[in-house]
């Protein structure tokens, strides 16, 4: 592995080196600076009073006793915000229903206005001198609720008599369609064989290790605000809050996301707490600090997934896929979260081709409101749902056709690129048979029958399952996103500031909350400039320092953020060449730059990087008539396409029918991520993604009581997160086809593991048990019932 402080070795580019992460030292030694570590002068503490009911009208709120409690500074409710004309939280993606009407956008208040709509819904913000005083005072607030029936069951949400929002009587946000219905219907009419499956993509709670936190301060000296917040995209947070909710100029608000302990999507969104704290900080005149307790995180972090679907695959008699028809109901929760509308539509239906040349696809998606926490993007965001559906139905189709599951896939693989799918995306490059073959080799598929027999001799069932996933990430071309309903662009920004003495600070709109950008981005810049990796500093997460970027999610940072940085670096090199040309008395066009040196082509006249950087800032001998001093460039990059990582996963399991416990005997993951900058970090992302996907498939289940709407799985006592002992050692490999449309040739790797692993696991388990379906999470009892022929 490489070390940050090694000098640049021209024979060993930092690209492709497993450079140790510079972030790790501070994380492992307790020296990181998380939002909760921030304590400001005059600090007060905030506690949110939350609804104990899933659905209720608020008849009255009595604050008298609470306001008189020791240490209380102020208490804010929806009434104060309404008086101040504070707006509701916006949704960033407009989806239209099949009939052309725009999606319903009921109000999403910062603090409850007359009604609460899920357990945990914010009712009041209590601000006090100490956290304990705020908590004690919160218990003294008396809220008179009139309980209403709770809408919990997803499938029945549009037909129950109760409306979550008074202005959306059927609880339906939109009823969307995508693809070619007529072509699909025609194909089914002549199909030799149809495989049909119904699925639930189970609801998940994100559980980033750091709970959400924020500290908001109003600065009286210049009438500005500073918000520290555990967030993945500070500029987006600021824009949404300023333009749509608080009506503040962005130039007067600074959002800082310091070290953030994991996000997985849950920290993308503009949350009510962030806004309430910012608004209240001016009224109170002192900074207000809030850190969620884990129970609050369970209740109010945006949840993930939560689809109910049926799918049908039409084939000819040889197993060629003719058409795919999908119908999905997706849960939005009680309120539309920032990207919620796009997750089960644009990020889902567009991936239903999978790796296959299925010519006709049609998907209908109905999104509904329920009295549960808002649901939004969570690691994979739409692509795990699509992949689960496609890879489960393909595996079942193989069984129905009595074909080998690898063979039916190979028969239908896309083999020529670029390939325009019938659901809107054009895959630029790929090589699907390559990773499937490699996965089969690593998994020793040929030896499986013998292993299965050996398990049977011990009285155990054994199964093998495949998942060949593809995903679209590196989001996104802004014009395409806009045409599809996005209300924001999806470019990225990078600024490269060369200092006089030659070190470099890079300001990136990407945000690192576990991805290791401080290391990988430094590798990219160092390689391009021919300077030691340790001489490159990466700054992110502060709207006061970094140009406007859209932040980190959707596996976009290296592909989009990295490219913006590369373009800025290239501008620096171009200017450096002009400076060098002047110093070397040569024509600009005769200057080459390599390994940190500028030289006159065809000669050995050269000048080092450090000389050029110093000259830029001490321009005594400088072409001031033609060139400005300084060496500081920025670039904004809007990608021309998504990127398409893909791979083949194979899972092998052994089942103990007596208890239903499953042992994962092996898990093989072969991915195509394009070019790889830091193999160690990529492998770490794959490990984490697979663990998260296996968590969904094996044990994670977010459950609300169907009558009361209480969150039954409100803590780790009931919500099962995978531990190291549950997860096997993986066999990981890559077969890479570089991305065709960014200079680094990278595709992104952060979500792939969570996308490909659930179907691989359930395919293996259904194979072992000889059943058509097993619901996720496949708990021991579910497996036991299937293994012993008992009703589910």
């Amino acid at each position: 592995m490489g070390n940050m402080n090694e000098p640049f070795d021209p024979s060993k580019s930092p690209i492709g080196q497993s450079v140790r992460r510079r972030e790790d030292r501070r994380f492992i030694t307790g020296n990181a600076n998380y939002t909760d570590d921030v304590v400001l002068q005059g600090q007060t503490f905030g506690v949110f009073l939350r609804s104990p009911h899933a659905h209720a009208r608020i008849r009255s709120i009595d604050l008298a006793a609470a306001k008189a409690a020791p240490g209380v500074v102020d208490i804010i409710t929806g009434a104060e915000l309404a008086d101040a004309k504070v707006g509701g939280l916006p949704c960033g993606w407009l989806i239209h229903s099949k009939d052309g009407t725009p999606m319903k956008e009921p109000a999403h208040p910062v603090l409850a206005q007359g009604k609460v709509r899920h357990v945990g819904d914010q009712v009041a913000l209590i601000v006090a001198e100490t956290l304990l005083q705020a908590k004690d005072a919160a218990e003294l607030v008396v809220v008179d609720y009139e309980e209403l029936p709770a809408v919990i069951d997803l499938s029945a949400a549009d037909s129950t008599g109760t409306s979550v929002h008074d202005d959306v009587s059927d609880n339906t946000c939109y009823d969307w369609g995508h693809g070619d219905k007529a072509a699909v219907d025609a194909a089914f009419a002549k199909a030799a064989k149809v495989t049909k499956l119904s699925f639930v993509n189970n609801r998940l709670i994100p559980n980033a290790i750091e709970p959400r936190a924020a500290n908001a301060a109003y600065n009286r000296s210049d009438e500005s605000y500073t918000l520290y917040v555990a967030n993945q995209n500070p500029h987006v947070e600021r824009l949404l809050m300023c333009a749509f909710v608080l009506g503040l100029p962005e130039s007067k608000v600074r959002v800082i996301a310091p070290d953030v302990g994991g996000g997985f999507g849950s920290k993308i969104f503009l949350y009510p707490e962030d806004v309430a704290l910012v608004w209240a900080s001016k009224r109170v005149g002192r900074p207000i600090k809030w850190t969620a307790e884990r129970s609050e995180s369970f209740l109010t972090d945006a949840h993930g997934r939560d689809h109910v679907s049926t799918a049908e695959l039409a084939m000819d008699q040889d197993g060629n896929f003719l058409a795919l028809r999908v119908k999905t109901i997706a849960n939005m929760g009680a309120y539309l979260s920032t990207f919620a509308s796009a997750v089960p539509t644009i990020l889902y239906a567009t991936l239903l081709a999978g790796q296959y040349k299925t010519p006709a696809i049609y998907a209908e998606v109905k999104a509904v409101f329920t009295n549960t926490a808002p649901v939004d993007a969570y690691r994979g965001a739409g692509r795990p749902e699509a992949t689960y559906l496609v890879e489960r139905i393909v595996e079942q189709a193989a069984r129905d056709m009595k074909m080998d599951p690898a063979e039916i896939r190979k028969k239908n693989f896309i083999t020529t690129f670029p390939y325009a799918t019938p659901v809107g995306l054009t895959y630029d490059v790929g090589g699907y048979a390559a990773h499937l073959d490699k996965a089969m080799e690593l998994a020793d598929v040929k030896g499986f029958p013998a292993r299965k027999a050996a398990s049977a001799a011990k009285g155990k069932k054994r199964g093998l399952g495949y998942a060949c996933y593809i995903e679209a990430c590196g989001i996104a071309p802004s014009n395409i996103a806009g045409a599809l309903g996005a209300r924001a662009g999806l470019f990225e920004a990078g600024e490269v500031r060369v200092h006089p003495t030659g070190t470099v600070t890079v300001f990136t709109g990407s945000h690192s909350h576990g991805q290791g950008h401080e290391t990988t981005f430094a590798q990219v810049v160092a390689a391009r400039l021919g300077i030691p990796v340790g001489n490159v500093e990466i700054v992110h997460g502060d709207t006061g320092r970094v140009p406007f970027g859209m932040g980190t999610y959707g596996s976009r940072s290296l592909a989009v953020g990295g490219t913006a940085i590369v373009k800025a670096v290239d501008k620096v090199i171009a200017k450096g060449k002009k400076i060098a040309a002047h110093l070397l008395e040569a024509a600009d066009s005769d200057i080459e730059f390599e390994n940190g040196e500028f030289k006159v082509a065809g000669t050995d006249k050269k000048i080092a990087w450090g000389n050029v950087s110093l000259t830029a800032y001490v321009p005594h001998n400088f072409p001031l008539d033609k060139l400005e001093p300084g060496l500081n460039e920025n670039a904004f990059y809007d990608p021309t396409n998504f990127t398409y990582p893909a791979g083949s996963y194979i899972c092998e399991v052994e089942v103990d029918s007596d208890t239903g416990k499953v042992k994962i005997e092996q898990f093989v993951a072969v991915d195509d991520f394009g070019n790889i900058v830091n193999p160690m970090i990529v492998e770490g992302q794959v490990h984490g993604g697979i663990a998260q996907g296996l968590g969904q498939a094996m044990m994670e289940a977010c459950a609300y009581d169907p009558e009361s709407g209480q969150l039954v799985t409100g803590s780790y006592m009931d919500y099962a997160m995978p531990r190291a002992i549950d997860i096997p050692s993986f066999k990981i490999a890559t077969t890479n086809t570089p991305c065709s449309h960014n200079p680094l040739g990278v595709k992104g790797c952060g979500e792939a593991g969570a996308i490909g692993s659930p179907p691989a696991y359930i395919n293996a388990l259904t194979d072992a048990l000889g059943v058509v379906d097993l619901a996720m999470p496949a708990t021991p009892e579910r497996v036991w019932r299937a293994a012993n022929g008992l009703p589910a």
Partner: protein
Amino acid sequence: MYAFEYQRPTSRDAAKSAAAGADTRYLAGGQSLIQAMRLRLSQSERLVDLGAIADLKAIKADGNGVTIGAMATHASVASNADVKRIAPAIAELAGGIGDPMVRNMGTIGGSIANADPAACYPAGVLAFNATIHTDRRTIAADDFFTGLWETALQPGELITAIAFPAAQKAAYVKYKQQASRFALIGVCVAQTAGGVRVGVTGAKGHAFRATEIENALAKSFTPEAAKAVKMPTTDINADLHGSAEYRAAMIGVIASRAVAAALAR
């Protein structure tokens, strides 16, 4: 957590007088109580920490058995030479509770006084027919666990030690609930002087003896005999993690694995 007064006496008598007075709790390892207090589900005006009372931690071989002080941590029980020699199933039971941090703090006295329906120790106490010694009397295992988080202890009564008779052919098998890692079903099987005893935790509101399995094992102390017993679903817990039908079925399965482990000694 609500504010409270904290005392840490160094003798049993000092502990008793510190506890006299309303609204006081004894604090043992804190692995359940402190959690409940942090969630504001428990509140006491005064907490009397027993951790400084040295003679409550002692573990000693005692005639035909081993007596474990109420404040002995799970880690100390798991590693104690006398326990491993005289009642190895109890050492293994203690070694499977929670994780290393929990085992360094949690105590046997705290565990049985709390009587969580999924705690491990109650199954072991029942299977071994242990005797619970308090500052006032001795209580037989069969009389101790009376209901959901309920024991025979009177208000203010302090457990001082638990005496386990020796039992060689004994084992505890814990089938862990995937989220909490408490016992979904935990079964301790022991061949004692008085015959075979089977203690089950996780299945009902409190640990109990599976007399159906005891009777089957009395005839034939084999895994197959235990597995063949179909436990009724009456009073069996049902929740997200297992239906009553599943839990009932697992009692026999886990008991058979405990018998196999006991025979393998």
